[in-house]
């Protein structure tokens, strides 16, 4: 369903965030993308929906070459690839319902979206999804009034609102407490199962990745260094992905490094958007 071939991202300063990544994802498969901060995980999923423009290579979604698409065709392709963010990325001053309905922006015209006139089947679907993610009755609350876990559920509902074929999930649990993280991963796994969605989930938490996904992808310095079922991801192969000698002695990722990683992604997508918006 998703075929990535020879995908390379080179920044203007010569830094190669991705080096000839090859990846095929069948329909309905949940893949966890793990790797150290700065390995290019966020860049990889952002190259798929072209929030970051890939430098070379091909991304095919159901046989459509995404990297060649013009602006309006790209909009169409993006409807099929929903994204979920670490920071939830909700429009905080809008209501939960408006956030969920914003998943339909690719289908609704500008004036109708401006006047919040969405088709009634969209509104029905939004209510149904809010119920599925456990947020019944909260549709008129402002998004920033909700807790982190609830906001991430709104993010998930917004993504499913797109009726996507593929979910691109960027660190869904990094801002959540362990129990909420489990709930959110469980919810994602259930929903992907129910809607037969494929998903790439960037995640730092290896046990969580192994528990909820069908496949583990290990990225190090822009290269795929591991690809296999969760059972094959043993303490012996973890140093190949994360570096270091003895995995059992390996501590948590430094928070500073992670911040740097995030900043870089945001900046690069911001540059792209400068051309995209207006």
């Amino acid at each position: 369903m998703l075929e990535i071939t020879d995908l390379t991202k080179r920044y203007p300063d010569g830094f190669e965030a991705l080096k000839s990544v090859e990846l095929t994802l069948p329909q309905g498969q949940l893949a966890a993308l793990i790797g150290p901060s700065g390995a290019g995980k966020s860049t990889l999923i952002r190259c798929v929906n072209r929030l970051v423009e890939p430098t070379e290579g091909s991304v095919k979604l159901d046989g459509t070459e995404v990297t060649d698409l013009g602006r309006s065709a790209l909009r169409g392709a993006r409807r099929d690839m929903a994204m979920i963010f670490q920071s939830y990325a909700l429009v905080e001053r809008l209501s939960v319902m408006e956030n969920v309905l914003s998943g339909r922006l690719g289908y609704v015209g500008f004036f109708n979206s401006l006047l919040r006139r969405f088709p009634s089947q969209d509104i029905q679907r939004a209510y149904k999804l809010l119920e599925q993610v456990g947020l019944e009755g909260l549709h008129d609350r402002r998004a920033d009034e909700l807790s982190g876990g609830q906001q991430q559920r709104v993010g998930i509902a917004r993504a499913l609102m797109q009726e996507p074929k593929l979910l691109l999930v960027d660190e869904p649990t990094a801002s959540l407490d362990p129990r909420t993280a489990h709930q959110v991963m469980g919810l994602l796994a259930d929903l992907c199962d129910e809607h037969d969605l494929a998903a790439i989930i960037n995640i730092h938490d290896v046990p969580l990745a192994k528990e909820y996904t069908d496949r583990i992808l290990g990225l190090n310095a822009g290269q795929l260094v591991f690809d296999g079922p969760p059972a094959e991801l043993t303490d012996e192969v973890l140093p190949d992905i994360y570096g270091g000698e003895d995995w059992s002695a390996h501590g948590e990722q430094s928070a500073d490094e992670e911040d740097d990683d995030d900043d870089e992604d945001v900046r690069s997508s911001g540059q792209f958007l400068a051309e995209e918006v207006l």
Partner: protein
Amino acid sequence: MSSPSTDDQPVWRKRSRRQALTHWVITLGIAGVVLWCFKLISDETTWSFVWSGPAQAGELANRMFLPEWYNRTGELWAEGEFWSHLGAFLADRAAYAAELWSPLVDTLHIATLGTVLGVMIASPLAFLAAENTTPSVKFVRPVALLFLVTSRSVNSLIWALLLVIVIGPGMLSGILAIALRSVGFCGKLLFEAIEEIDEATRDAVVSTGAGRLQTLTYGVIPQIAPAFAGISIYRWDINIREATIIGLVGAGGIGMALQTAIDELAWGHVSVIFIAILATVILSEWVSAKARAAVT
């Protein structure tokens, strides 16, 4: 710098002898320049006028705010005469205050319409000037910034002066002058607010397949809405005060009444205008404080 003293106790000085000397020379030099500047100013000042200043100010205040204490023959009013004189004094002020309603309302109109027009021009310019929404960082952004800087670098009064020459005296000149000055102010603050938005939120909207205008209306505008309202109200508050002045050069509003009153040496009327302006400004401060509290 430390150096051992005679009885070998360590001595610490912040500056060495040489540094301390330089320090003093520079300090004295600056003091000398300041004194010299005072002398230059003093030479250009007619001190006899300055010394008579307090008396002049008292006289002016007397003429502006108080009824006349003496009758035409130079004697104090007899008691009955004084009260009737005071009555006439107050009646004159009240009648003049009533006449001021119309220019005062004009002033409010100039400030409000000028602000609305200024914000309407500033908004698109802000999107063109913000690094993250401009269509071209190299070409469009510098042009937008140039517009904003130009607008900001010319005072409302000077815009009014130019506009009165170009399109003639009256409220329209005033509205345009206020608007032209507001464009730069609002545009600058707005584009800074746009540059501070959360990019992840906009990425999220883009990744739904939203078009460019949808991305703006869902991903950017909700994020800057509070700043937009706050900036507009703040500028309106400033514009009320600016609109009282621009009438001095003929651009409508209460400033024109002030100009006339000063030309006629009608100091009693000038004082009424001052009180009216003060009341208006206090009112606008109160309104804008309430409005700003409501939007955040």
